[in-house]
């Protein structure tokens, strides 16, 4: 049977706003499959985003959806989760939204380890504003605000998440469609802050400026650069030059924030009684 994505999408909302060949739709499909795998109740699931192309995703989803301000998704999400810990809280957004303007909220969300899942759709560019360089645009690449090539060093979003204290960090690409839902599902099931970075393509704003002839070229590049983390362990360093590790990059068990706060509530109520 064809997969029933429509049951999870608000009626009449397709076609979405994303450009031809933009991988955001592929990630959205993966997210829907992951939510199905985990059996998430739509009424009890909030999907929170910031601003940008990827942040339009929640509007299509038939859940409690919150399209916030630029960079603020993780902080709004923390409020939802603290005030109603029993809700499933998912965050989606792009690279600029998540780790440039939203960088502070991102790292502190990782540090607190609330039980939330953040799916970062990393397409290495600000798409909605027309292709300015982001913190993940490769050094030397072309963007509308780097007329002489990008002078900036980049963030590795997954490493940033691990360093900041997220307890489940995984990475895949829009090419590896079946891995998207598996990793998101694993992140949702993980009790704590999970970050799933999906390397994505922006044919309109990144591809055209950086000598990709087509959407398919961009997809093939994603296939070529990805090396599963288990395979990488057996590869010599020179062969890993320019490659990006995929799969579950980090996982640990650490007390979850809301569960710890529940203990504070019990303690305070006890002291009050």
């Amino acid at each position, binding site marked *: 049977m064809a997969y029933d994505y*429509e049951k999870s999408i608000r009626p009449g909302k*397709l076609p979405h706003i994303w450009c*031809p*060949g933009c*991988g*955001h739709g*592929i990630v959205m499909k993966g997210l829907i499959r992951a939510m199905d795998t985990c059996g998430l109740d739509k009424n009890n699931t909030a999907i929170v985003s910031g601003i940008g192309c990827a942040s339009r995703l929640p509007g299509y989803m038939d859940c409690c959806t919150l399209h916030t301000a630029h960079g603020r998704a993780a902080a709004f999400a923390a409020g939802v989760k603290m005030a109603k810990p029993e809700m499933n809280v998912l965050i989606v957004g792009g690279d600029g939204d998540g780790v440039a303007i939203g960088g502070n909220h991102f790292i502190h969300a990782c540090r607190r380890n609330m039980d939330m899942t953040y799916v970062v759709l990393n397409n290495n560019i600000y798409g909605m504003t027309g292709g300015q360089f982001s913190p993940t645009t490769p050094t030397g690449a072309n963007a509308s605000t780097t007329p002489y090539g990008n002078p900036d060093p980049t963030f590795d979003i997954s490493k940033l998440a691990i360093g900041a204290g997220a307890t489940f960090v995984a990475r895949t690409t829009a090419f590896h469609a079946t891995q998207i839902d598996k990793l998101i599902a694993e992140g949702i099931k993980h009790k704590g802050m999970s970050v799933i970075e999906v390397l994505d393509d922006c044919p309109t704003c990144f591809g055209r400026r950086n000598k990709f002839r087509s959407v398919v070229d961009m997809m093939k590049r994603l296939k070529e650069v990805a090396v599963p983390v288990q395979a990488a362990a057996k590869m010599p360093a020179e062969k890993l030059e320019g490659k990006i590790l995929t799969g579950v990059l980090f996982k640990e068990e650490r007390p979850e924030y809301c569960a710890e706060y529940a203990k504070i509530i019990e303690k305070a109520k006890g002291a009050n009684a």
Partner: protein
Amino acid sequence: MSSPRVEVIDRLCKGCSICVEFCPTRVFEMDGFIAKVVKEDACIKCMQCELRCPDFAVKVHTE
């Protein structure tokens, strides 16, 4: 065994050509700005097209 019905929803297809390129049995071709099913019988139900279509426009109806 009957071959599955492969559907491109014209209203949703944005013509990225991902299905055309990634189908191992060349079921699709571009027809102007959108994809079109041209060799439905060749479909081997690998579901690559449905999985990869970013636009929710390709469906593979299997029994």
